[in-house]
């Protein structure tokens, strides 16, 4: 180029422009940057050949390596399935008695149970399974639908008042709202229930009246002794545990509005082996595993 001119001090070419006697050097870009630019460009070109990249007329170019994330995750899931097969088939095929007696299964339950419980169950029942208002304590309290392992697994599978076609159904009537009991009667029953749960002891006369009310209205579902019936999912009213809360207001609300708690059905979301593992984990929390 005609404008080339070499600067005598630095030895570099100048741009050829001059501003008030000042000339600008045209120092080349450092070699390192060139190497970097060229190598990343080459890498990018190679990568587009290896990976799914260019669109075409009949779909996109799938890459020479044939990488497909969906296939990859399915393969790793199948691998995981195979790794677990050793115990997951045992969980499904053997009965709970055999499983609970096997130390290797118990140690598995103690390892795999907590994360599974935390991801799915803890939101309602709490991380330690001790329950929340409206969600029963399943670590200590008697189970409403029965605490046999098969019963627990079935409850997890179909849920309670859930959308599942075989869901367990339970509803406590709204004795106050539907005008089966008056305010005074509800108060009497509430006091009686609090006594049953270990609250203040009533006078003999008050208790007699409440017992009659209980026999007429509550005993049909909760049993004449108030201990609940597992086949209808009615809670035991004589233990110290409350599902919704044991203050007088909450107890009155329960009788007035009735209760219909929901437990979601887990079939479909959890595998049969996971459901049985959770049943065993709940048993372990209840101290029923060796």
């Amino acid at each position: 180029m005609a404008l080339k001119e070499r600067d005598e001090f630095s030895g570099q070419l100048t741009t050829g422009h001059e501003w008030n006697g000042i000339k600008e050097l045209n120092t080349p870009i450092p070699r390192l940057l060139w190497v970097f630019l060229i190598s990343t460009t080459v890498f990018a070109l190679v990568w587009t050949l290896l990976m799914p990249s260019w669109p075409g007329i009949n779909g996109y170019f799938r890459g020479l390596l044939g990488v497909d994330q969906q296939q990859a995750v399915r393969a790793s899931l199948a691998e995981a399935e195979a790794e677990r097969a050793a115990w997951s088939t045992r969980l499904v095929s053997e009965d709970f008695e055999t499983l609970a007696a096997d130390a290797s299964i118990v140690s598995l339950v103690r390892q795999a149970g907590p994360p599974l419980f935390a991801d799915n169950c803890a939101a309602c029942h709490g991380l330690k399974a001790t329950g929340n208002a409206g969600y029963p304590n399943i670590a200590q309290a008697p189970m409403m639908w029965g605490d046999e392992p098969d019963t627990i697994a079935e409850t997890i599978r179909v849920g309670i008042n859930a959308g599942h076609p075989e869901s367990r159904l339970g509803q406590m009537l709204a004795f106050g709202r539907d005008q089966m009991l008056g305010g005074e009667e509800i108060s009497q029953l509430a006091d009686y229930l609090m006594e049953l749960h270990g609250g203040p002891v009533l006078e003999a006369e008050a208790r007699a009246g409440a017992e009659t009310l209980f026999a007429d209205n509550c005993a049909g579902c909760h049993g004449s002794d108030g201990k609940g019936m597992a086949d209808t999912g009615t809670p035991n009213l004589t233990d110290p545990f409350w599902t919704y809360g044991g203050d007088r207001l909450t107890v009155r609300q329960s009788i007035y509005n009735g209760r219909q708690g929901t437990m979601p059905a887990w079939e479909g979301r959890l595998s049969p082996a996971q459901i049985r593992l959770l049943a065993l984990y709940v048993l372990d929390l209840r101290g029923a595993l060796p």
Partner: protein
Amino acid sequence: MFGFHYRIERSAMGLVGFIIVVASIGGLIEIAPLFTIDETVETAADMRVYTPLEVAGRNIYIREGCYACHSQMIRTLRDEVDRYGPYSLAVESSYDHPQLWGSKRTGPDLARLGNKYSDAWHVTHLNNPRDLVPESKMPAYRWLLRDALRTDDLSDHLAALRAVGVPYSDEQIANAVQDAYGQANPDSPEAAGTAERYGEATNLRVFDGLPTKLTDMDALVAYLQVLGSLTDAAVRTETAGIE
């Protein structure tokens, strides 16, 4: 090495022309893949649209910024599928405008939250998460139960969604307000219309536990309870892969 560059710099029109050429390469690479979108987005014949109440709930989800802490995309990673369920497919977001995939998880992914917990749980938890999960750091959204849901503009929301490709019918747009009411009041005469226009699988429930009032909570819970259940495509894809 720079000879060509020096020459082109000295020609104004030439430089403009080359800038256009170089810039369009970038544009082309971004746009061209969209021509093959049919190849990459699955089809789902059973895909259903959001009901007006769910659309309203989705708008509340956006308004309250839920997406800032919760993603709605299960990635193709083994641990995510183990924890959350089948990985998300593109088709599942095809009626989401804008999509709410999110890019950050302070809380868990919500892509398959629908029907995982009960309505009552959602109501208590949104009202104050620490009532149920003592270790939670999610804010309490106490106004959701208090504020009445704004429904007068629901037809417009549906019409806007139709303009960007969601297949709402004229009838669905015209009846948006009463369908929203019907969905949250299953015993009302409007409920039959909601079920007829949006299918029997639609959740018709008193979501917030307050039968007389249509609140923001009704809408948000209705939306949360259908997350991941607009189509079974993801479950089908997963089972197809295992066979």
